[in-house]
């Protein structure tokens, strides 16, 4: 009796501990083995390698851009779902809901601000991430496919942001989408069908609002989540972040031992292999010196990036309200009617030539982006910023980037009524 009682009592006393244990199977790691286990036994952490290359952790190498994009996407998903509780995709109600969000819904202002600014930031950060990958030559084999997934993600990001632009149903939204979709209309053969498919009508109206809403909250996020998953998976499968061949680095004075001996002599180091998918075992000796455990090194870095993203976004959202213009008035287009800023480069090009600016040049640029890892097969200069061997590729890429940025700047600041050149100063 007493023993049973005692046992029950003890079980009750142990209850919190047991519940905790059942959730977190490993105690806070104290050994290398434990650190490894923390990574690969946790659902959320097992996407990360057990050990990670030190170069990967250098903030100056990645600048955390990919991770910031991801966190922005998470923030967008969370704030977006909360906003969905208040939003009605109807031309008669949408704008009123914006006014409500702005003036009377609890946390409405901050939610909308964060969603809006995160969307703009995500477009910019994804683009910068792409620049980083290009300028460090990280798209090269075996990462060609992942580069293209990334291009796809960039387009999806643009499109998500664009579809969200219409939802407030204010003048800014209406005319930006009118301009944006008419750029789509310049595509040969399918242009008008494409435009009609997007709008569900000849002009932006209720059908377009509903379509953009469904695209924005269901179709595109699902596509994004899938592609992000593949993107992350491929990072692992392609051997982690790109870095220079060991031969290109000043070699540590490591003695390359026969594989069997290393494994046998230093069994603890077998965990290092968890971080590798490909590559001969002989590299173990070199890698070992270059890698550190993900727990806590990588996790702290990620936490830092997350906090930084949230803090930055929150600061911006506290000080700057998301724009809300007058309700849609089909009879009074603003002059000039401008597309969202990330399409203003396109609009500027369209002002020179509808077909070439709106369809031809962007299509060529996109094609180049897709093909670049298959054209540029040299393996030199991978994993370093502005490697000397890649000076031509980088120069070409930067030229394209600069031209597009200049076009966007012109379109944003230097264009006034009737798309006349004006000086903002």
């Amino acid at each position, binding site marked *: 009796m007493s023993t049973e009682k005692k046992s029950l009592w003890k079980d009750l006393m142990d209850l919190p501990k047991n519940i905790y244990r059942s959730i977190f199977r490993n105690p806070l790691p104290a050994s290398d083995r434990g650190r490894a286990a923390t990574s690969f036994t946790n659902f959320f952490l097992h996407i990360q390698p057990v050990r990670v290359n030190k170069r990967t952790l250098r903030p100056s190498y990645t600048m955390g851009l990919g991770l910031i994009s991801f966190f922005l996407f998470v923030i967008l998903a969370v704030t977006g779902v909360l906003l969905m509780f208040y939003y009605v995709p109807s031309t*008669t109600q949408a704008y*009123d809901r914006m*006014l*409500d969000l*702005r*003036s*009377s819904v*609890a*946390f409405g202002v*901050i939610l909308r601000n964060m969603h809006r600014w995160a969307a703009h930031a995500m477009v910019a950060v994804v683009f910068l991430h792409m620049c980083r990958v290009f300028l460090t030559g990280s798209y090269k084999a075996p990462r060609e496919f992942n580069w293209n997934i990334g291009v796809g993600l960039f387009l999806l990001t643009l499109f998500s942001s664009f579809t969200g632009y219409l939802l407030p149903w*204010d003048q800014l939204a209406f005319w930006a989408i009118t301009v944006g979709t008419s750029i789509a209309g310049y595509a040969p053969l399918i242009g008008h069908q494409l435009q009609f498919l997007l709008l569900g009508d000849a002009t932006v109206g209720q059908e377009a609002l509903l379509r953009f809403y469904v695209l924005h909250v269901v179709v595109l996020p699902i596509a994004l989540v899938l592609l992000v998953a593949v993107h992350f998976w491929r990072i692992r499968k392609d051997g982690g972040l790109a870095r220079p061949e060991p031969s290109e680095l000043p070699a540590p004075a490591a003695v390359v031992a026969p594989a069997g001996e290393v494994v046998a002599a230093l069994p603890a180091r077998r965990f290092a292999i968890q971080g590798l998918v490909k590559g001969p075992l002989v590299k173990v000796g070199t890698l070992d010196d270059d890698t550190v455990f993900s727990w806590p090194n990588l996790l*702290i870095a990620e*936490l*830092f990036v997350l*906090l*930084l993203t*949230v*803090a930055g976004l*929150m*600061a911006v959202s*506290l000080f700057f309200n998301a*724009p*809300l*213009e*007058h*309700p849609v*008035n089909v*009879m*009074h287009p603003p002059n000039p009617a401008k597309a969202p800023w990330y399409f203003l480069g396109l609009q500027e090009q369209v002002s020179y030539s509808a077909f070439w600016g709106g369809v031809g040049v962007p299509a060529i640029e996109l094609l180049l982006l897709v093909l670049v890892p298959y054209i540029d097969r040299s393996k030199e200069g991978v994993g370093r910023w502005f490697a000397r061997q890649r000076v031509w590729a980088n120069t070409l890429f930067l030229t394209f980037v600069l031209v597009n940025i200049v076009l966007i700047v012109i379109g944003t600041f230097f264009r006034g009524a009737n798309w006349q050149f004006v000086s903002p100063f």
Partner: protein
Amino acid sequence: MRLALAVVSLVVLVGSGVVIVDQFHSQWQDHQKAYFNQALGLAKTPAERAALDGRTPRLEQVIATGFGDARVDRCESCHIASDDPRFTQGKEPLRTHPYSAEMGDVLKDGRWERRHKFTEFGCTACHDGQGRGLDKADAHGEETEWPRPMSGYTTQADWDKNIAGHLKGKEFLQANCVRCHADKDFAGAPEVAKGRALFFKTGCFGCHRIEGISSGTLGPDLSEEGKERKVDYLWGHIVDPRAYTPTSIMPKFKLTDDERKSLVIFLKSRQGVDYSSSAVAGYKLAGTTNKPVPESAIAVESTLSTSLTSAARGEKLIEGYACLSCHKLDDHDGGISPDLSREGLLRDEQWLTDHFKNPRSRVPDSDMPVFGLPENDYRDMAAYLLTRNSPAPAATPAETYKNLCARCHGEKGDGKGINSTYIDPAPRDLTLAEFMANKPESRLINSIQNGVPGTSMPPWSKVLTADQTKGVLDYVWASFVKTPHRQLKPRKIPDVNPVAMTPESIHQGEAIYLQRCTGCHGRKADGHGPNSLDISPRPRNLRNAAFVQATSDRRLLESITYGVEGTAMPSWIDYGLSQNQIGDILNYIRSLNAEPKTGK
């Protein structure tokens, strides 16, 4: 690393704290608490006190469904004392909304009863503003993007400082009164009635349509102007239309600030939806084809006695209608359109009546509206204008120029007289020596004496004697042209177009025209080609039938063949056109104007 982490975490924590505090601490709650405290002090009976005791701040809102779309007004969340008679001396927002017997509020047993109950009307039906807003800036519509700032109270940040000062005052609320009290003599909205009268007196109705009121077509429809525009735009656009719309042809009318205010309030009241009329009534109104008779016509005619002679009646009409808000007649000067003081010597009766009925039948590019007045009014006005026939007093040529010519051609002869912006084709720039010196004197004299058909240049032969004409021209020459007369080489030009007017020739001419001439004269030959904006003088409107028909083959052939000196018209013989091709072009231009659009 740890420090950085700590700092960033702190920022996130503080940020979240700010958001939460901001969320759960609202102005309106403070206002309500202050109200409860003050009301407790004013409470006389225990029952009143008990009622206040349990009260905590809560959102107060009215959902008014009676006026168009349902509106949600949460104004009383802050203005909680608006219906509490004890707060007449309170400070906003804790103040009683004034009671007004004029507005129909009734004093019953010492208690006021409102005619317009807040529970029924809400607040924004009269005051505008954003009923949903719970923050002062949101609710009063202080930020630029809010479409309906509080009428006569809130000034938005982007409003011009000079304009904003005029836009305050409770008169502006009258614009909303008439959305229900739609009858035009409603006594509660005198400013609207005044604005409405001005809308006719100033001639606005000639160009602008307002549903059920006027039927002008030259300018934009103003039926929903009050819904689409804010008062700062309305005011600014009336003061200087081109500051807002660079291509506007609307004149700057001479109005006082008081008149502007009434007009703005009247225009603000044009919101399309008339709460008092049913959908069916609106449909019926939209379906009527009758042009509304201008109210000013009715008003003016009711003051005229039938015993007046035609000319006397015409005089009253010209004064009573909007004519003088643009035109000059003796001392009255609208500063926009030509001087009518000697119209009887410049035009005949036929011209005047044609011009009244449709100004563009005589001056194809005129921007004078068709006012749509009764026919006999036109006849009487023409009769009156024909009595205005005193010849110019003997004066020095300089004075004559100043009296008769400067209004259009400018004091300096540069073609920029006070009404030149509203005249199309624009008055000739007399300082353009290159043009002037290459015209034979006989042609210049002819233009003065016989006018230039199809333009605003009238024939002066009955006003000026031949000597006076010569004197003025000499004065122009000495003061503006300042170039010796040139000995013009005689050019070999046929008097009559040598190419016969055949369909083939017209077709040929059209082909050449489309290749060579459209850049300036435009595809429609209306003088509005893509280059026309940068050219001064502007390219000729080749569809100005009155002008083209009155101009000889010889002159047109000369202009095309050798160009027009001092203008952008080049010498086409130098650009490779043959005599025959030029003949074809002329045939094409003549064919465009073949319809006898004007009286002879």
